[in-house]
């Protein structure tokens, strides 16, 4: 998302490391961030075959703790889960220690204010606390919403002054385990506190590339040393935002503000799976009436994968037509270096969502043939 206001840009604790590795720096979500190092395509393919290191410190890691100090263990978790479930439709109460879940922050109309990952910490001393990572571009508004909604009941601590980095790709596990032993034992969407020397690291097996990998939250100064050490490994290269976008698009993952926003519900965004059965039965989340009606009957427009049949990429905003009639719009589109083809996703009217449906992408005034397709475009490599 481009920055248009005059607020001075911030730098993450890894800024100097990026510059030392030859990064091309651009403004992104209020920060000066690396968009590429050696080139988007090379970085993309490296991540799919080796290990790519991404600085995601611009995002919004935070901890939310329930205020009743007489509670501990499962009771404390139940208390904080009940609080956060006022704003998200996922079953947070049912998380096991060390388990993480993707969910969405909803407004009263059922629109998506953000997507976020909520983790129940594994360690005993953090029961009653949730580790939450929200999107960088909207973190201030998310956190204001948390503070206003939960005032007096829960306390928010921002952790975006620290380093959050991702190590993604088939070699990520072997590289990381040498520094953070025990990370290799985590399965997908599991999290654990692991020490590097005396440095406390929050390690989660998750990511935004479709590959196996990890995200690590660590203090700035030792974190810079850890990242520098990882980058010295010949299997690891730094990866910019450009490849981050092409990797997540091939993996069929949504980018907030593009593939979903406050005008879209989770059902429209094809994220109905984030609403577990217990929450559907309780129907107690914001916008639940509208969302559950769509769950039963289907939404008018739904997010789908789009496979252009020619070589022209269809970018965000490209209109979708069938026989001259507008049926939808592309919300993310580009070229997939691993599939070696243009790829896209977007919203189409419900009756046109079947894979194989022929559509026209209106690129620079001309119709280009495409088909609705299944997502993702690549076979994910998650460690289940």
């Amino acid at each position, binding site marked *: 998302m481009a920055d248009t206001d005059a607020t001075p840009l911030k730098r993450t604790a890894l800024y100097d490391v990026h510059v030392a590795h030859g990064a091309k720096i651009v403004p992104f979500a209020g920060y000066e961030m690396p968009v*590429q190092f050696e080139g988007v*395509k*090379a970085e993309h393919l490296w991540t799919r075959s080796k290990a790519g290191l991404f600085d995601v410190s611009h995002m919004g890691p935070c901890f939310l703790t329930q205020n009743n100090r007489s509670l501990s263990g499962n009771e404390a978790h139940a208390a904080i889960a009940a609080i956060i479930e006022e704003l998200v439709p996922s079953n947070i109460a049912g998380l096991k220690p060390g388990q993480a879940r993707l969910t969405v922050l909803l407004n009263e109309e059922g629109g998506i204010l953000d997507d976020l990952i909520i983790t129940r910490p594994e360690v005993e001393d953090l029961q009653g606390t949730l580790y939450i990572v929200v999107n960088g571009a909207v973190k201030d508004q998310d956190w204001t919403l948390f503070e206003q909604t939960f005032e007096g009941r829960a306390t928010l601590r921002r952790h975006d002054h620290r380093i959050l980095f991702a190590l993604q790709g088939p070699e990520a596990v072997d590289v990381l385990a040498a520094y953070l032993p025990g990370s290799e034992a985590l399965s997908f969407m599991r999290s654990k506190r692991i020490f590097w020397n005396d440095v406390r690291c929050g390690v989660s097996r998750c990511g935004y590339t479709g590959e196996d990998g990890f995200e690590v939250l660590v203090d700035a100064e030792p974190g810079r040393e850890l990242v520098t050490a990882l980058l010295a490994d010949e299997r690891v290269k730094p990866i910019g935002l*450009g490849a981050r976008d*092409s990797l997540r698009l091939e993996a069929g993952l949504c980018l907030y503000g593009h593939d979903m926003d406050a005008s879209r519900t989770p059902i429209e965004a094809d994220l109905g799976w984030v609403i577990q059965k217990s929450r559907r039965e309780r129907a107690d989340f914001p916008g639940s009436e509208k969302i559950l009606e769509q769950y039963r009957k289907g939404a008018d427009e739904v997010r789908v994968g789009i496979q252009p049949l020619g070589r022209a990429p269809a*970018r965000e905003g490209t209109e979708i037509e069938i026989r001259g009639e507008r049926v939808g719009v592309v919300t993310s589109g*580009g*070229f997939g270096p691993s599939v070696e083809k243009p790829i896209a996703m977007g919203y189409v009217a419900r009756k046109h969502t079947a894979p194989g449906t022929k559509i026209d992408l209106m690129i620079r005034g001309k119709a280009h043939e495409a088909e609705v397709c299944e997502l993702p475009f690549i076979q994910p490599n998650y460690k289940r």
Partner: protein
Amino acid sequence: MTMKFTEDHEWIRVDGDVATVGITKYAAEQLGDVVFVEVPEVGASFSKGDDMAVVESVKAASDVYAPVGGEVTEGNAALADAPETVNEDPEGAGWFAKLKLSDKSELDGLMDADAYAKFCEG
């Protein structure tokens, strides 16, 4: 046969009434991996500065402008199947189109190689 350059990083090489047009090595490096090129159709006419072609990298689409006015006599059809030629040889085999010039005096306003090199240094 001399080469001239625009501030939008196109090059033009004139041979008699016909000029070959492409994007510069500097532009190709800035764009990164080219994955798609749309060249103009034969017979299309452009004024100086019109959108003439499109070049797309993994991340974004960029317009290519006509350095001078003219009518297209040939588009580089080879780029359809080999867009990476623009990265490999931007000022040679990666040309975009040939134009029959409408007003050769428009060339006078363009930069020569030395001036363009200085322009890229900022």
